[in-house]
């Protein structure tokens, strides 16, 4: 990386390569495209919403890896639970 890149705070090319690879490998390994992940998310919300009210805006779903194995991780806040924490404030 040359002086100008450093001066203007441009990201090192090796760092871009690593970040891009991290994303690409998740999709290569799981056969899950971002679009499929979105539709999986919608299905999850629909199913869970039949039982409890969820905070759709705050929910997060993604694939994490531990060594070479992949894990689907969903963090789904429930609406009623959030209201309670607000009251106690």
């Amino acid at each position, binding site marked *: 990386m040359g002086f100008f890149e450093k001066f203007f705070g441009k990201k090192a*090319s*090796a760092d871009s390569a*690593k970040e891009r*690879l991290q994303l690409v490998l998740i999709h290569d*390994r799981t056969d899950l495209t971002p679009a499929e992940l979105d539709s999986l998310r919608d299905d999850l919300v629909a199913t869970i919403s039949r039982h409890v009210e969820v905070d759709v805006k705050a929910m997060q779903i993604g694939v994490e890896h531990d*060594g070479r194995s992949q894990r689907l991780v969903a963090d789904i806040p429930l609406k009623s639970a959030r209201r309670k924490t607000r009251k106690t404030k």
Partner: protein
Amino acid sequence: MPATVITITSGKGGVGKTTTVANLAVALALEGSRVVCIDGDIGLRNLDVILGLENRIVYDIVDVIEGRCRLKQAMIRDKKFTELYLIPAAQTRDKSAISANDMVRLVKELRSVCDFVLIDSPAGIERGFRNAIAGADRVLVVTNPEISAVRDADRVIGILEAEEKGPASLILNRLNPALVKSKDMLSSEDVLDLLAIELIGIVPEDENVIIASNRGAPVAADGKTKAGQAFRNIAKRLKGETVPFLDLDAQGGLWERIQRMAGRK
């Protein structure tokens, strides 16, 4: 003890599979092992020229499989390393001339006559690759610190796991320490973090590799070169020795350091 059969593969072409096979063969022979290399790249024969044995070919692997010669007749013996043999690829045939079962049978016959069988795999994940891994006890995946090579290595590692040929070990070839330092090349830590498999060797980018292939005498024969040392260390690790990784940063003498300080390297 029966031989260990090791296949060297990569997914992507041009990352250094053939170079690795030739150098590990020489390095293992220097350690006193009996080695047979098989060029599995049918139709794109290359291991013969890298080892400097191209003028001695009479029979090839397809001749053995189709029964035109005995196995021993297709094994070319190296003149410098008398316990090193090459079974060349057929040049005018294609991959369909060989099946995975043929490879398993061939390798079985070789197990009793040497200590190591090294198989040079073609690029890709198709038939030639499948043939090359069919008889393997162990697989080494070669990659470069470069985005497409790492991605392809990951695919191959996944396939090897699915085929129960894993866990594979990684050889990171053509690492350029100066580029890693300036953060313009993935480091060995980055690559290991991404691929999450065992590392068995790091081979630096080294012009001696090209000079050696011009001459048909692999760099591992010369213990003074960085790449040669790296390949010798991998050979030792294959034999079960624990060898520390080369310090690639402490590279060169005063002149190189001056050049680097002046920003020329």
